């Protein structure tokens, strides 16, 4: 998995590429933790390049979203396609998490 971070005015955009599985999901949580400790209130995960996600990856998204919410911030997802999108739909995490089609919509939706 490769994560590229871009600092925006109100949020940090994390571009996630590759596989988010049992071996790599912790890297996403660590990246989010890093930006939280730098004071980021809102994180946007751009997932166009996410090829694969397992339940371990879903756990990471839930854990980060719960932490961000508890700190009066948010984790927002965008760009989900293919089997990763189906996995979010099957587990009904779309609806529990904020999910947008594109990064520009996610940015426009920030408080």
């Amino acid at each position, binding site marked *: 998995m490769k994560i590229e971070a871009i600092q925006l005015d109100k949020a940090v955009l994390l571009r996630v590429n590759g596989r988010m*599985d*049992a*071996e790599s999901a912790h890297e996403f949580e660590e990246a989010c933790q890093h930006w939280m400790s730098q004071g980021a209130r809102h994180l946007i995960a751009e997932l166009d390049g996410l090829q*694969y996600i*397992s*339940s*371990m990856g*879903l*756990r990471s998204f*839930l*854990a980060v*979203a*719960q932490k961000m*919410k508890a700190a009066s911030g948010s984790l927002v997802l965008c760009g989900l396609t*293919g*089997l990763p999108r189906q*996995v979010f739909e*099957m*587990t*009904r995490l779309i609806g*529990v*998490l904020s999910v947008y089609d594109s990064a520009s919509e996610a940015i426009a939706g920030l408080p």
Partner: protein
Amino acid sequence: MSRRYERLTLPARIESLSALREFALAGADRAGLSSAERDKLDLVLEELIVNITRYAYQPGEGDVELAYAIDGPGALAIRITDKGRFFNPLTAPEPDLTEELDRRGVGGLGVFLAKRLAGPIRYRRDRGRNTLCFRLP
């Protein structure tokens, strides 16, 4: 008709996942699975094997055997065996998918996904072994 299985046995650890995955996906390619079924296989394998590494054994002990057989054109039969304690992941309670973010638990999603994607999965306990079998598509 008995199937001819190819097998790979490795320590039941997360670090074994990528080699087990490559082994099974090579089988999927030989069987001519569609790319959608191949992706499902990838995910179902991870979920079932992670469960074995966590619950069938104490950390760091024991092996897992992955076996596959080509089961007609474009189809693959998969068998996963361990010698850990009696453990049937298929009887785990279904996760509650209706909770709000604050209350949403993270457990149980893996087996839930495996069941949804693989169709019928069969579990058997025999001579000290746990065996899970399924077929794609």
